């Protein structure tokens, strides 16, 4: 036998859950500091004027001694802060342990996106905790290579752009093997393309827009 009071309670729980989710998800976008970072746009499998935003920050090379940059790849090592990366014996198991953990990348101003425009931010240090006073961006470690390369996931969903912008984005490549470090490393960012993020001091980050050719969407 159904209970009207139970159904009302279930509706109240559903409202609270969806409301809390909306508040939690929108908090960085509302309260965060706006920054601009270089980005690349990738088309979606279905042409719906949606593009995936990929950040060069999603792959960082640590300043570990044995890191070997791939040929043709700009090598901009990120300095480690703290003792979270173990070198030498046990690196492999340590690297496996890092998967799924949050990693905080501290940003510093880099080149301006356009003459007189806002500076794009670049990764300077990486730590296993948010650094007070710095601009932190928290990502989840999804893959680790023992020679000091880490792949991060910032949890961005596709964003809507005009159809012509989507048509000029990088083509969609179906996901291959789960080991993302197995394939060739693509250029990190597209010229004139940047992502507009809002970040909280805790490192939580929200994607609020993209800049393509000086136009913000």
């Amino acid at each position: 036998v159904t209970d009207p009071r139970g159904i009302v309670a279930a509706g109240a729980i559903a409202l609270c859950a969806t409301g809390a989710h909306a508040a939690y998800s929108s908090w960085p976008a509302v309260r965060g500091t706006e920054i601009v970072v270089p980005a690349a746009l990738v088309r979606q499998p279905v042409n719906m004027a949606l593009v995936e935003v990929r950040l060069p920050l999603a792959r960082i090379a640590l300043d570990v001694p044995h890191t070997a940059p791939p040929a043709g790849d700009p090598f901009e090592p990120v300095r480690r802060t703290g003792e979270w990366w173990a070198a030498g014996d046990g690196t492999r198991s340590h690297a496996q342990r890092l998967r799924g953990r949050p990693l905080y990348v501290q940003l510093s101003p880099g080149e301006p996106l356009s003459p007189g425009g806002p500076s794009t931010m670049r990764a300077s240090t990486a730590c296993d905790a948010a650094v007070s006073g710095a601009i932190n961006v928290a990502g989840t470690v999804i893959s680790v290579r023992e020679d000091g390369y880490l792949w991060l996931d910032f949890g961005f969903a596709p964003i809507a752009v005009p159809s012509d912008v989507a048509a000029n984005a990088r083509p969609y490549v179906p996901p291959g093997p789960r080991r993302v470090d197995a394939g060739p490393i693509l250029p990190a960012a597209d010229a004139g393309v940047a992502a507009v993020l809002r970040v909280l001091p805790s490192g939580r980050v929200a994607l609020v827009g993209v800049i393509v050719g000086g136009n913000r969407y």
Partner: protein
Amino acid sequence: MRLPQGLITESEAWQRDGLITGEQRRAILARYDTAAAGADQASAVLTWLAVIVAGIGAVILVAWNWTDIPASVKVLVSAGAMLGFYAWSALAARARRDVLAERLALVGALLAGGVLFVTADVLHADPQRTYALPLWAAVLAATAALTPSALAALVGTAVAAWAMLIGGGTPPPPWWFLAVFPALAVAVERAPNRWAAGGVTLGFGVWVFFVVLDVWNDQPVAPAIGAVLAATWLYTLALAPDARRPAFARATPALVLTLLGLAFLLPSGSHRTMSDPRAAADRIWPAVALLAALASATVWNVGRTGAWRSRPAGLTALAVLWIIAWFTLPAAWRASTPLQWMWTAVFSGAMIHLGAAAVRDGARTRDVGPLVVGLASVVIFVIVRVVDARSLVVSGSMLIASAILLWWLARLWVRPGARRMAS
């Protein structure tokens, strides 16, 4: 009038048993129009086809223009529809239209998922990172328990399993996800249904698998608590045969134990060990105390109900021991402490003893088959550990073994449950 389904075979059985004559059977069947029944079926099929085609058309229409719809409209329409269906369901329940009320509440809970995904889409946030699926499973579980609705429990279980499967442990489920399964258990207790019961058990199996996977990845504290909570929950549902007690009470111990677990987890910060590597070893003692408390409660539960005397219960106990062994063995292998090796020896002895008892009691091959699978997977584990060849094969074998084991557990659980319901 439409010919009732099964009347032909049923009347044939009546005639065979001498309840009616052939003449009477023909007279009964002549009261119904078989041609009309066929037309009805065709009409129903065409109607459903039309509904499905119209639904696909509506989805394509909205999806194609999705980026042009203002964000506020998306959120307000989806949230308004969700609340509207819950309100409609409450009104239907008040009018004693129970079936309609249950279905409308389910639609409301399904739309809650829509609200969560729309919110994530509007904010360009990955739903997986904002725990949209675990939240949706929690809403479905709450709706299932409060309505009560077996169908909502089944859908909630599917969503919970989906969340775990696509997440694969990255990011790990939030700590409050532990409360979803007891809520689903309460729903099954309030609205008994064998399919929902089996589904919840299998969903729980998926959870256990990922708990084991987390342990495999050297994150022992919180997953261990999760495994023991889940195992205790299984015990509570599978081994509490007292039908004279209110059905709700059978799930209550699982709720109490979950709350206890959370009470231990939150102050100690152990729930953060899934995402914070620094909060680990020095905070293991609350978890160890919890393990001891839960193990004692489990032993007490088995002794109180006398469940250890029955073959299914014995085999269930064996299965739970097997699950616990999965998180004990890796730790034993790494640490090699005498206590852990002693526990492994006790586990092995219990497995052999219960297996022998099952065979002595006349267990059929299919009943002891999962034991063989369990033993084989333990052997595979040990071999792999020796040669240090971690691979997808191992994960796959664990998954298959867990699936077979949980299917078998579902059979053990459903059969006594169905008998209780029948009585």
